[in-house]
């Protein structure tokens, strides 16, 4: 809903028993689909578009201990020296599963379970920070959200808490009592709201397979696919939370998710350098729109796109 004439005057309007502030949404029902649709923008602000988010698996990497974690720590330290602007996050791993199994046995409500689990992800973030601190990392507490640019500009690599703060307010899942907004989703949405275009997930497999490679020897690695293809024909086992893919459907910024094997030395480094390792999943609709490499600056393209959308919107409104 572009004001166009800058009419957010802030004038107070009374007369129907309520006092309104003049704005395009004044007196409107925010539930009205017609009102909500008018607010749509195809040129959403990207807050930190050049930052890459790296998510490190809990069960797949962290629960393996030293032999899996220390080589990754070296790679991350080296990447930091190369001045990659990145944000790190870690999953919670087996302790999350244990927490949930106890909580389910006790009959705790879904929101109660969600209130508990983030502690394990936070503990792993503290582990990772202890290992990387001498290279310049810092755990970003949620209330320090807006210190992210400060950390990045002062050369620090922030480690974020992966579980989103849905807590007691976790929405009821479509099936069963398990909370669906887990750490993969949490990292995704953190990247998306900041306008990041690339996320890398470090797991213990070479990427996404058509079925679980730990259970099926004939599982085939998918080197390159699109979000659209996954949504249309989801593999039996997804290596990332299904909520991540559901949310990505409506996302405006994340163009590419790369899944690499953290147990294979150098894969993460190569992925950070933009190499085609592991599995690359792209959101085809967003790739088409920019038709430029993901890392490239796009301010000029954005401006012309903005003009086009505005005129389209004006045309729609006039009609």
């Amino acid at each position, binding site marked *: 809903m572009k004001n166009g004439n800058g009419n957010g005057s*802030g004038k107070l309007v009374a007369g129907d028993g309520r006092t309104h502030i003049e704005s395009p949404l004044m007196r409107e029902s925010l539930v009205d689909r017609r009102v*909500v649709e008018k607010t749509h923008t195809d040129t959403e602000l990207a807050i930190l578009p050049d930052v890459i988010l790296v998510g490190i698996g809990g*069960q797949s990497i962290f629960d393996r201990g030293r032999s899996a974690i220390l080589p990754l720590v070296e790679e991350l330290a080296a990447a930091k020296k190369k001045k990659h602007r990145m944000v790190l996050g870690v999953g919670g791993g087996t302790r999350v599963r244990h927490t949930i*199994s106890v909580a389910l046995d006790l009959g705790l409500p879904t929101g109660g379970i969600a209130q508990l689990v983030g502690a394990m992800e936070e503990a792993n973030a503290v582990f990772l920070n202890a290992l990387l601190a001498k290279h310049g990392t810092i755990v970003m507490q949620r209330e320090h959200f807006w210190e992210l640019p400060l950390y990045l500009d002062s050369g620090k690599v922030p480690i974020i808490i992966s579980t989103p703060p849905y807590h007691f307010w976790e929405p009821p899942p479509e*099936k069963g009592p398990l909370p669906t907004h887990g750490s993969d989703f949490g990292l995704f949405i953190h990247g998306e709201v900041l306008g990041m275009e690339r996320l890398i997930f470090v797991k213990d497999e070479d990427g996404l397979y058509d079925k679980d490679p730990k259970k099926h020897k004939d599982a085939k690695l998918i080197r390159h696919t699109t979000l659209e293809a996954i949504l249309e024909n989801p593999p039996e086992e997804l290596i990332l939370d299904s909520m991540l893919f559901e949310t990505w459907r409506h996302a405006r910024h994340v163009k590419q998710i790369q899944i690499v094997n953290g147990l294979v030395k150098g894969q993460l480094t190569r992925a950070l350098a933009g190499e085609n390792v592991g599995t690359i999943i792209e959101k085809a609709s967003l790739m088409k729109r920019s038709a430029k490499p993901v890392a490239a600056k796009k301010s000029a393209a954005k401006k012309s796109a903005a003009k086009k959308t505005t005129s389209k919107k004006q045309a729609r409104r006039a009609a």
Partner: protein
Amino acid sequence: MKAATTHGARRTIASSLGESSMTGTSGGMDYSPVAMMPDVKVIKIGGQSILDRGRSAVFPILDEIVAAKAKGHKVLVNCGGGTRARHIYSIANDLDMPTGLLAALGGYVPRQNARMVQMLLAKHGGVFMLHDDFEKLPVYFSMGCIPVMTGMPPFGYWEKPSAKGQIPAHRTDAGVFLSAEVLGAKRAIFVKDEDGLYTDDPKKNPKATHIKRISASELLKADLPDLVIERIVIEYLNRAQSCSELQIVNGLKKGQLTRALEGEDVGTIIHKG
């Protein structure tokens, strides 16, 4: 609790979910939920519909809440946003801000409103609480307090983008429903300025007719362009473990809220099913 110790292997804790990928929807476990505080009455005072009207609308409602507490009801008061939230959303939208920003920014207004209501209820035991204080609810109630909080859920920057539009899908109605759901309360009560649900916005369409009782499925099937309550709450209702009814009452009509707190079917009931 046995741990595998092979060098380099995943050190898992044996549990019924130990080997599960957790990316699906079911852990395959038996589950019989317990209700945390099923007797709490979770109510929401509308922002635009009530609070923006000021004293004439707000004071009589607070009187009813104080009277209900005196009769022994445990009332958790949640506040909506209203016109200032709309103004924030408008400006943020004009600046092309992402949905998560709108959710975080929109959160300030219901918090202000909750503080206002707390000041008015203070002499009757009104306490302002944050999301982080939720576990202290038993203390508040045993002390005879009326806890007041924002209706907004704590998603903030972590709110999901919607298919169409920038307005966050989870706003204060959603937060109130989710509070009732996790507490194990059967009903969430929404105090607005209409007798409940109509076939269209009665403020704009005089031909709109009142609906007394309707199921979530019927309502979703009717596919109304406008609703009295956030659309996502109706979707969640059918998945709820505990909160199976949403009651919408008219706070401008004296006694409606009191009757709703006594369990009467006034206003509109939207039920699971």
